[in-house]
């Protein structure tokens, strides 16, 4: 973390490396902070291993806390809000350490120049809170310390006798209460301590107890402006007809009918760019979206299907099954699997599979861009603003510093918005016009040109000894996924795991929980099968293979307790249990209670135990866990993208079905008390759901579901 510094807004102009290419004064004014405010600049590191370029950026400030003359606390930072509630978490941490009134803390608009911003700006890997935790606390504690110092010198009291609470500096004796607004001007002139004292978690009144709810009023009144809602003056609308086959190319097109649509402006060819994930297409630009959509429907396009004309996901599955039987390319080995397996008392040898999955954010992909001769503005609902700026620079030939990237509200991410394809397309089209252009993807485009969670197959083998302990596990994953082999967190002496890689031209991308999802489905399914082979209770069996003090065991015991594991259920219902592998510093266990109705699984209740370290914003933690469970359940029941003739079969909510309210189970989230630093919550709730549900189905019917999504034979 960089050296914290205080700055007043009267900082000399012309200083190097100003964010957004502005003077600090202009920058803070844009953030809504007035002259003379107390400002602390600091750095929010990325919560992961950084490359060299990132390491160099680490020393730059990329976040600011400002306490204004009226006592309002403003946080400037770069994290997009995609529904994960990160702004609530950040505000909680900051307000806690400062001792601010939660209602008087606000988030400034997300900065618009990623190139001068110390992190290049992105949201992924459930890292936002983990990365920011200690920096935010330090910055807050520094601000608190200055306010307390200012109050101490004003009142002639010792700083030790003072504390902050809800926007006031107070004395412990109770006779002093000075609002921040009266102290800011003085505090802004003081030098902050390098290592301020952080609050002891036992003193927390906001963290773990309150929720900031920064966005909600705009969301319930329709005022929140999402990417889809951006409407700069003079807007044109674009939609793109793309190659129906991945990697196909344009032969010719005829837009004579499209030209007859009132409001039609023009068509233009979009050249494919495989690095940017952009398909060959014909863009239609019109004065209104509906005109563009109608004109697009009236296009006659001839495509050259190319090499993928016969690409088929059923064939990919067969190929992966083949690959999963081959010796591992680069196995991770502990002990001697072969010896232990061959001498095992009982053996399991099973093949599992997971399909391609789509994200299906509620807001379809879109992006608005206005390219001028010397500058460019982009409104991008993205999880990666830095990438959007780079794309804009390369497509327009402008300097990155001339490109302004606005981050509107975002209607769901789940990993989809880490890809910049939609921004590339919008910029590609907008270059041709002197007016702003909004590119809107239809839902059909969204489903057919996503970046899919890769299909995978797992060949799993395991051996039990006579006492029912797992002595050997081998897991051979076959996938085109760039992520690695499953991690085995159970105590097993002889292990061989790894991945055999496949490749094809089906576009893939990060999907909420990434490889943790199929890893958990495979490992937890194997453990469940082994428990039944051993004749043991599946929950106790798992505990038998975990150290008593492991956080895995703790969440399992918690979920057993809260779900009344083992207690009788109404006829026709059964429970299943599963863990997920540690994800972003968080551990999750779930118990699913299900029945079968009309040949289909129905989930009645999900009990979830979460150890996410300190739960900064408990409402957000629960919301993320609830959402993850329903996201996983949707995938378990319905999620499947099929490829036929080189393109995606599904197209909209009627054939890529979402879970609906009448299928939504009762959900209980139990957050474990913890003093560990906060873990991530965006993804860890997804992985356990699928194996817990298939475990319940096995307990209910004796049918072992090894392939996602769930299709019961007994139907």
């Amino acid at each position, binding site marked *: 973390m960089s050296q914290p510094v205080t700055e007043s807004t009267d900082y000399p102009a012309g200083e190097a490396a100003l964010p957004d290419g502005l003077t600090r004064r202009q920058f803070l004014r844009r953030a809504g902070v007035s002259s003379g405010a107390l400002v602390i600049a600091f750095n929010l590191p990325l919560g992961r291993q950084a490359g060299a370029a990132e390491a160099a950026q680490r020393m730059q400030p990329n976040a600011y806390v400002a306490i204004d003359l009226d006592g309002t606390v403003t946080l400037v930072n770069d994290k997009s809000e995609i529904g994960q509630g990160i702004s609530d978490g950040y505000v909680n941490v900051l307000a806690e350490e400062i001792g601010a009134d939660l209602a008087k803390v606000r988030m400034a608009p997300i900065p618009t120049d990623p190139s001068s911003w110390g992190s290049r700006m992105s949201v992924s890997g459930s890292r936002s809170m983990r990365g920011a935790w200690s920096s935010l606390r330090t910055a807050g504690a520094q601000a608190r310390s200055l306010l307390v110092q200012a109050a101490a010198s004003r009142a002639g009291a010792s700083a030790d006798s003072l504390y902050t609470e809800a926007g006031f500096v107070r004395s412990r004796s109770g006779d002093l209460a000075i609002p921040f607004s009266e102290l800011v001007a003085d505090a802004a002139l003081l030098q902050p301590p390098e290592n301020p004292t952080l609050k002891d978690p036992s003193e927390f009144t906001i963290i773990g107890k309150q929720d900031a709810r920064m966005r909600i009023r705009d969301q319930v009144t329709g005022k929140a402006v999402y990417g889809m809602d951006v409407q700069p003056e003079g807007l044109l609308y674009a939609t793109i007809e793309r190659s129906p086959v991945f990697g196909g190319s344009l032969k010719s097109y005829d837009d004579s009918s499209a030209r007859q649509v009132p409001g039609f402006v023009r068509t233009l060819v979009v050249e494919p760019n495989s690095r940017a994930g952009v398909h060959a297409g014909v863009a239609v630009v019109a004065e209104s979206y509906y005109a563009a959509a*109608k004109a697009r*429907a009236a296009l006659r396009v001839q495509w050259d299907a190319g090499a993928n004309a016969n690409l088929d996901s059923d064939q990919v599955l067969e190929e992966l099954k083949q690959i999963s039987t081959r010796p591992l390319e680069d196995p991770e080995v502990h002990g001697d699997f072969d010896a232990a397996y061959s001498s095992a008392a009982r053996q399991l040898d099973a093949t599992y599979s997971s399909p391609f999955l789509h994200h299906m954010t509620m807001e379809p992909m879109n992006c608005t861009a206005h390219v001028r001769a010397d500058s460019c503005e982009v409104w991008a609902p993205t999880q990666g603003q830095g990438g959007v700026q780079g794309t804009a620079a390369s497509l327009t030939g402008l300097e990155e510093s001339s490109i302004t990237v606005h981050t509107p509200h975002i209607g769901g991410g789940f990993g989809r918005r880490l890809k910049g394809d939609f921004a590339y397309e919008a910029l590609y089209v907008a270059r041709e016009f002197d007016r702003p252009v909004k590119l809107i993807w239809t839902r059909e485009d969204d489903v057919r040109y996503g970046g899919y969670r890769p299909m995978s197959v797992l060949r799993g083998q395991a051996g039990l000894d006579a006492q029912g302990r797992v002595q050997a596990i081998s897991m051979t994953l076959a996938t085109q996924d760039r992520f690695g082999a499953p991690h085995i967190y159970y105590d097993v002496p002889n292990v061989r795991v790894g991945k055999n890689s496949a490749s094809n031209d089906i576009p893939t991308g990060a999907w909420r929980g990434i490889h943790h999802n199929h890893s958990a489905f495979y490992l937890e399914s194997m453990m469940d099968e082994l428990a039944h082979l051993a004749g043991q209770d599946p929950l106790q069996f798992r505990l038998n293979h975990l150290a008593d003090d492991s956080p895995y065991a703790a969440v399992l015991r918690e979920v057993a307790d809260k779900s009344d594991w083992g207690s009788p259920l109404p006829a026709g219902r059964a429970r299943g249990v599963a863990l997920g592998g540690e994800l972003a510093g968080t551990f999750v266990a779930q118990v699913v209670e299900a029945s079968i109705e009309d040949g289909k699984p129905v989930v009645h209740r999900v009990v979830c135990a979460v150890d996410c370290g300190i739960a900064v914003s408990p409402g957000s933690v629960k919301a993320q866990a609830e959402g993850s469970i329903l996201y996983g359940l949707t995938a378990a029941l319905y999620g499947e993208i099929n490829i036929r003739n080189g393109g995606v079969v599904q197209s909209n909510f009627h*054939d890529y*079905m979402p879970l609906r309210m009448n299928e939504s189970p009762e959900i209980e989230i139990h957050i474990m008390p913890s003093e560990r630093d906060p873990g991530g919550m965006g993804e860890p709730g997804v992985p356990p759901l699928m194996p817990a549900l298939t475990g319940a189905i096995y307990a209910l019917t004796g049918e072992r579901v090894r392939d996602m999504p769930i299709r019961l034979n007994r139907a």
Partner: protein
Amino acid sequence: MRLVVAPISQMRKTILFLILLAAAYPVFAQPPGMSQGEYVARLGNCVACHTTPNGEPFAGGVAMEAPNLGIIYGTNITPHPETGIGNYSFEDFDKAVRIGITPDGRHLYPAMPYPSYAKTTEEDMLAMYDYFMNEVEPINQPNPINEIPGWKSARWPLAIWNMMFVPTTAYQPDPQQSDEWNRGAYLVQGLGHCGACHTPRGLMFQEKALDQSGDAYLAGAPLDHWSASSLRGDLAYGLGRWTEEDIVQLLAEGRNRWGPTFGTMVEVVNNSTQYMTDYDLAAMTLYLKSLSAVAGDSANQPYVHNSADTGLLLSGSLASHPGAQVYFENCMNCHGYDGLGHPPYIPPVAGNTAVLDPDPSSIINLTLNSSLRLVIGEQPTLYDMPFYREQLSNQEIADALSFIRQAWGNAAPGITALQVDQIRQATDPVNEDVHILRMK
């Protein structure tokens, strides 16, 4: 009369002479910018079976599944000398279109509606011949080989079939009727080949009637898991409640106050009827409205909208009404509490003849698979019904459709899950791509 006269060969001079002779008959003008031959080809909807969506006009290759037979391909009918019909004389052409026999003596499968085309006048045949020879671009595209199992591929039975069922003379005007009625009858029976789909077929696959003299004529027939509904005057599910304007509008624009057309008729409107002149639309309508009701009294109760079911839906208390529940959650937002929809884009289901059709194939098929897009004036309509085959079970679809068939005063028999399943197994979701078949 307008004629496109290309450099005239001796033979064509003969044709011109014949056309001038034929002009003694009442003359029906084609729309501006179109030759008579092109218009006749539009009326006969040749393009639908002889042009693929991305293919060259009339170069063939359209696959058609013939019931109990196999796959038949529409042939190349461009004037290409080797792969098309470039070497056909007028007599060859006339024989193929009107009698179903090629110059080399092969009998065409009656997927080619020559039993209807047989009624075409010589004048129209000459005009169409001129169009195909002189206006259509010759395309070198060999015909695919039909996929018909060996034992079914013998063509000699077709000769017998033709002798039994195919008329050999052109339409004979009925002097008792007006010119307009006769023109309508000529179009409906002949080039329009309405009976090919809407007239029930006999044991030998022959249409049971070829004109209004038979009660079976246009009385509704199953067609490839759709129901080509009755065009007779019956009130419940014929055209009894359709006004002349309704019929004209459907043929010209593909939709009217009963909603958009669907199924195979979308292709007919997209490629043929929307190009018809006002006079011809009115003439067809006059003829269709002259067809009597044939289904008997029970099918001829006048439809009266009843709002009891509107009240049930508005109450939202549907626990004991499974069909109403499915309708409430999936159908009602478009088709309404009152079942009245948003015509002309979204059809009413209350009182709709397609809903009341005794054969429920169409509404089952629509619900499972949706329908093709209408393209009027080369502008596709974007009001697509989603297909429900993934979202709803056979039972749920049967419940919802049974509810619809008996709500708001509708009185048609319920539907079983088995009926839904049979069509589910035999069909696929519609391809939502827009197909604009060009004749140029």
